[in-house]
């Protein structure tokens, strides 16, 4: 699972940093973002992301990818959060690429990875269900082996990136575990109900009415995809944390500038101690999140017990910070912070979504406790 981690030299990384930072600056995504209602078109941006080698960021060099690891992923996500990028990166380049890498056989890899790297194949993971909430163990969707393949029945909810995806990775209960299947989005029996998240990302709810898939569309062994799913979801959880970190960093900079330029009562707002302290609390929250996130990233190489507690702790801390930084950035901007015209309100909504993705603070607290989390020695 960790074979790519040392592939990137520091020179590679600085090249990556330059490329992503230029990309984000070029499109300075706001204000087309989170326009409300319509899923993003974004085909041209997506091909640019592919041309930069980012769709294949986590794919091995021998499979035609960029060969990056979790540090590189963190770097890219932070820029994407900073620039409000809403392209389907998480579904395809993080969850999709990770699951294909962990579970797919040679034929499947050869079929999917080149298209994924080229930006021609977009993937969405359909795992969560309406009755599961944040819990990671949905039970309603089931796989049943028939002659000539498998039949999937059930429903999935909050399938991020589904409306722009060509291929769905659908989890289903089978043999006391989870199996994973590649299902074309236009397969018979797949009914998509697309919608948009409050921060402008495309998502969908999904019905699976007797969907027939060939055995060759199965990733991994029957009932044995659970560990890979859990690992990929942890990786994606940390990725969204990095995204939130970039967004928070942006808000801190904007708010700092605003306090220094906006004058009331004959002086800049930055001269009021109560506002200074608020800004400092935001700053501390961000630095703490960054540090804890780095520590959690290192546990992606470990087995699940230690990893679960570390990822839950990081997501909890980032969620708390996101709430503080998002809400206070709006508050300190006053009515200006409420307007569509400033990026502040867009970052506020992005952080709201980041907090909710893969489980909010309450959920992570429970997960941390259940994993026996304590302070490591």
């Amino acid at each position: 699972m960790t074979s790519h981690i040392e592939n990137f030299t520091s020179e590679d990384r600085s090249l990556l940093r330059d490329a992503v930072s230029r990309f984000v600056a070029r499109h300075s995504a706001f204000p087309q973002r989170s326009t409300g209602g319509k899923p993003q078109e974004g085909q041209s941006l997506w091909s640019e992301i592919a041309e930069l080698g980012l769709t294949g960021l986590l794919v091995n060099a021998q499979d035609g990818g960029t060969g990056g690891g979790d540090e590189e992923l963190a770097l890219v996500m932070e820029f994407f959060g900073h620039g409000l990028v809403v392209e389907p990166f998480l579904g395809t380049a993080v969850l999709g690429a990770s699951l294909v890498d962990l579970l797919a056989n040679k034929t499947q890899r050869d079929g999917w990875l080149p298209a994924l790297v080229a930006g021609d194949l977009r993937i969405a993971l359909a795992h969560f269900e309406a009755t599961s909430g944040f819990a990671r163990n949905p039970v309603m969707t089931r796989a049943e082996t028939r002659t000539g393949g498998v039949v999937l029945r059930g429903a999935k909810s909050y399938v991020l990136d589904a409306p722009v995806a060509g291929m769905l990775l659908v989890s289903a209960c089978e043999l006391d575990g989870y199996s994973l299947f590649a299902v074309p989005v236009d397969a018979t029996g797949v009914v998509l109900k697309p919608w948009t998240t409050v921060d402008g990302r495309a998502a969908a709810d999904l019905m699976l009415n007797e969907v027939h898939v060939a055995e060759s569309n199965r990733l991994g062994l029957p009932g044995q995809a659970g560990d890979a799913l859990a690992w990929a979801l942890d990786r994606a959880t940390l990725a969204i944390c990095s995204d939130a970190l970039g967004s928070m960093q942006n808000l801190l900079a904007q708010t700092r500038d605003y306090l220094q330029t906006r004058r009331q009562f004959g002086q800049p707002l930055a001269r009021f101690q109560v506002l200074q302290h608020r800004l400092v609390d935001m700053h501390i929250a961000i630095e703490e999140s960054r540090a804890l996130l780095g520590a959690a990233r290192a546990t992606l190489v470990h087995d699940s017990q230690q990893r679960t507690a570390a990822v839950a702790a990081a997501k909890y801390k980032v969620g708390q910070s996101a709430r503080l930084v998002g809400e206070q950035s709006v508050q300190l901007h006053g009515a200006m912070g409420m307007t569509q015209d400033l990026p502040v309100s867009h970052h506020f909504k992005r952080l709201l979504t980041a907090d909710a993705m893969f489980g909010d603070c309450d959920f992570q607290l429970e997960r941390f406790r259940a994993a026996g989390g304590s302070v490591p020695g």
Partner: protein
Amino acid sequence: MQFLHDPAITAFREEVRAFVRTELPEDIHRKVILGLELVKDDYVRWQKILHRKGWIVGHWPDHHGGCDWSPVQRYIFEDETTRAGAPWLTPFGVNYVGPVLYTYGNAAQQALHLPGIRSTDVWWCQGYSEPDAGSDLVAMTTRAERVGDHYRVNGRKIWTTMAQWADMMFCLARTGRDGRPQEGVSFLLIDMHAPGVSVRPIVTLEHCHHLNEVLLEDVMVPASHLVGEEGKGWTYAKFLLGNERVLVAEMGKVRRMLSQARTLAASIQEGGQCLLDNSRFADSLARCEIDARALDALCLAQLGAQQAGVTPGAEASMLKIRGSELQQSISRLTVDALARRGLPYSTETVLSDAPEAAEVPAGASGMLREYLYLRAATIYGGSNEIQRNILAKSLLDT
């Protein structure tokens, strides 16, 4: 809180409750409960229903068409109508400029403006804030120069709620240049249809248009539209701001939001369990319930003091702080519940009453809209930082 058990007060509460149940139009009620954007006609229709009953200005003196309600009656009226899902009673006419006019206006102004305020045939907006005068309102620079029997007004007002629907604006403008900054301010009534007035929309983070910027370019305002004395506008403005008192807590809205949060949580599942059975969520809800009880108790204590003839001081700021923060906490809980389904937000749903796009409980977009909009609750009407300054001053300066 003995006054609450007074049979006359209990009967009044029952009467208001019954009235709302039978008279509030179902379509308007539905929009309010689902958090959808109301249009001007929704507000006007409801306010005209209240007008026919004489209750729209129940808190006014009877010789100006009111019912001489006590502060307790007014509190109960707001509480009962709001919790039952009636629209926000737009305050610009009936709560703000109306009382200024019957207190400081002349007979001609009262005869001209009060009927339109009572009937909601004339829609009012408030021209206070300016780009460089928000929390520091007295830094305003809009100028009114006397030219014959007119004032020529130039300036920019901002964050003007519902100005796009307004026929009239009450406006603070500078008529003098000398003395303390408070001294040169006058209270003018401006016809929004007059030449030189233009309204530009400001779209807020929930994609709705209720705020505006109002440009005033050489607007000629008849001198008869000056309220009270020239240069005394600041006094009238302060009178107006002090007028709402315990109503700033918006206790009825708090009750409505709590009941909605509970209903929503009952309909959301997590790991096969109802969210109300999730102890972390249930605890958060219980914390809000306790805060709501405390807020209600605080309102009643202040009402009791008012009944007993104690002159109100800075304590309304307490209610503003606690009320706004509690509304934010409750709406955050509903968002936490909706987060389980990915926070779908559809402007079509909110603005035109289309069905939700996602498989979510009815009203999901409306609840999210309310959460986003309520970020302003700690900013408008004097930000909570300003309210804390007011309380600090009253604690430390005496």
